[in-house]
């Protein structure tokens, strides 16, 4: 005896694609921070790509050592008189490369392991998950450090080594998502329609968990960057006293980070500028990740717009909770 016409709030004819897109953009923007983060990261990528063509390799000039920031050297100069800005600009590309490579490798391995475990189930699931548990409890950075030693120090290898050991979190998350897709009725219909495992994994599971994986990827880039700073700090060989000559292929922003106490007292710019660039980069990534996450949870209520256009409401009682 219940109503025949039970309506749906959300599915209305007036909800066009344009409207949905605008809503998605507003969800992403939330309080403006994700947009700032996105713009900042885009700027860093442009600088990293264009920078090496515009700037020259920082030259050693003993007579210009440890100069404080000036118009000629906006970020000051290092111990041997190299321009710090040039060093940062040229080191940016390798650093971004570490983050993107590491995150891409770990997400790729994690996705394969997680989806295989989730879709096939049974003994494959059990074996892969025990393997993931094992990967969770190994000292990841020691193995990454060893891989770097064997393969040689470069941005590619650092990213590769960290990616190879940090896939466990992604695998566990992908398996959980794949299981939730598998237990839904959509999967039953796919099996009834005669879809093979491979077809189900690539056409049903992957598209549904792809959005979550993109969010995970953004956070993973930040995580890989943090781990690579720790990896590089574990090894004094590649951390020359600030501004020292770097081995070829290792001119990373991250190398400038571990400046040590000496530069903090006398030559503060050598400490704060690289650290500032690094931290702002990571925080911008976290903001983008937060914005994407808000995009994925449409149920989450949005905070009030900063520049609200609707009329001020006369309220008898404010919002609670």
């Amino acid at each position, binding site marked *: 005896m219940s109503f025949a016409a039970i309506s749906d709030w959300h599915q209305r004819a007036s909800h066009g694609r344009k409207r949905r897109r605008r809503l998605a953009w507003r969800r992403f923007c939330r309080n403006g921070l994700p947009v700032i983060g996105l713009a900042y990261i885009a700027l860093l990528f442009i600088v990293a790509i264009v920078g090496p063509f515009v700037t020259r390799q920082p030259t050693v000039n003993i007579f210009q050592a440890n100069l404080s920031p000036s118009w000629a050297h906006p970020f000051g100069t290092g111990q041997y008189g190299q321009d710090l800005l040039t060093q940062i600009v040229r080191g940016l590309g390798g650093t971004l490369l570490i983050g993107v490579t590491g995150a891409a490798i770990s997400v790729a391995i994690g996705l394969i392991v997680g989806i295989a475990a989730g879709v096939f189930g049974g003994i494959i699931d059990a074996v892969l998950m025990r393997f993931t548990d094992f990967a969770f409890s190994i000292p990841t*950075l020691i193995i990454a450090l060893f891989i770097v*030693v*064997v393969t040689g120090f470069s941005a590619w290898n650092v990213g590769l080594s960290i990616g190879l050991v940090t896939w466990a979190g992604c695998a566990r998350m992908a398996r959980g998502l794949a299981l939730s897709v598998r237990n839904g009725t959509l999967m039953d219909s796919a099996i009834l329609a005669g879809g093979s495992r491979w077809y189900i994994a690539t056409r049903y599971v992957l598209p549904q968990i792809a959005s979550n994986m993109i969010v995970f990827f953004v956070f993973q880039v930040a995580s890989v960057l943090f781990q690579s700073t720790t990896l590089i700090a574990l*090894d*004094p060989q590649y951390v020359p006293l600030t501004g020292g000559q770097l081995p070829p292929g290792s001119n990373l922003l991250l190398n400038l980070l571990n400046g040590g*106490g000496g530069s903090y007292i006398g030559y503060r710019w050598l400490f704060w500028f690289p*650290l500032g660039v690094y931290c702002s980069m990571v925080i911008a990534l976290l903001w983008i990740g937060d914005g994407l996450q808000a995009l994925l949870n449409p149920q989450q209520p949005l905070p009030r717009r900063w520049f609200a256009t609707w009329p001020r409401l006369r309220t008898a009682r404010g919002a609670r909770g």
Partner: protein
Amino acid sequence: MPGKRYRIIRVIGLRIAVIPMLLCILIILGNALGYLNPAATSQSSAIPGLSAAKPAPFWHSVYTSLVAIGTLHWGTGPQITRELVLRSLEISSILTFGSLFVSAVVGIPCGIFAALKPRNPLWQAVSAFCVLLGQVPPADMAVILIFTFSLGWHLIPLSYGWGSVADAILPIMTVACFNIGYMVKYTESGMREVMQRSFIAAARARGAGTASVVAHHALRPALTGLLTFLGPQTPMTLFCTVIAEQAFAIPGIGTMLGIKVTTYGAPAFGSGTTLSITLFIFGLFIMVLNLLIDIAYLWLNPLAD
């Protein structure tokens, strides 16, 4: 509830039983990796006039590392004695657990308040600052802390090494800064999520105030959410401890094992053995931490199996 208790004991027993097996795998893995190291196989040919010695067979280096771990008697140069090993383990665990404790005490309340007051700029700023702290590399964090607290404000006497309580404050703060970052982040997001759920509205309809709702209803689900994120972070916590030990010249396990490229590149006494001892010690640490997290999770969550 005898059923629940029995289940928890069984699960934890299984986890403990798996640990030795995983540690054996780690030792073998360490030795296998050691064989991949070109520096380890060409060690003897560095001395001119002597022909290169045959590399020891694989089982031999596994045996060496097992004996070294079993007797806690490592190293050939400056003797790493049993007392030294135990002492450095003790120091490192004080640093690790101390930092986890400090960051939980500071970070969880900050996360809760930031989640409960989404429009309060003060708490939002505190939460954002904590997340920023978590992203500063620990080597730089150590420098900042030294120059702020000991040399700037003269609050903590500057001292290197280990001995008094004051020596532990800054290293613990260094590691805690990393932990606070994700603790605040995950507590905040977990709390936000829990406060949206309908049982919170039901609890409020029964006349519970905000403090009671948070303490009795929301805190446990939010903390279980945090704990699931805490497990994958334990290795990083440990490596931050190692960096803090290096920065403050503290004789912990990181310093004792001398973790750096030269250890593996130019082996002290067979790189496979060194590597597997390092993996063993760190693996043991991580597994014990994860075990504690699992116990806390089972204790907090009646739905866990």
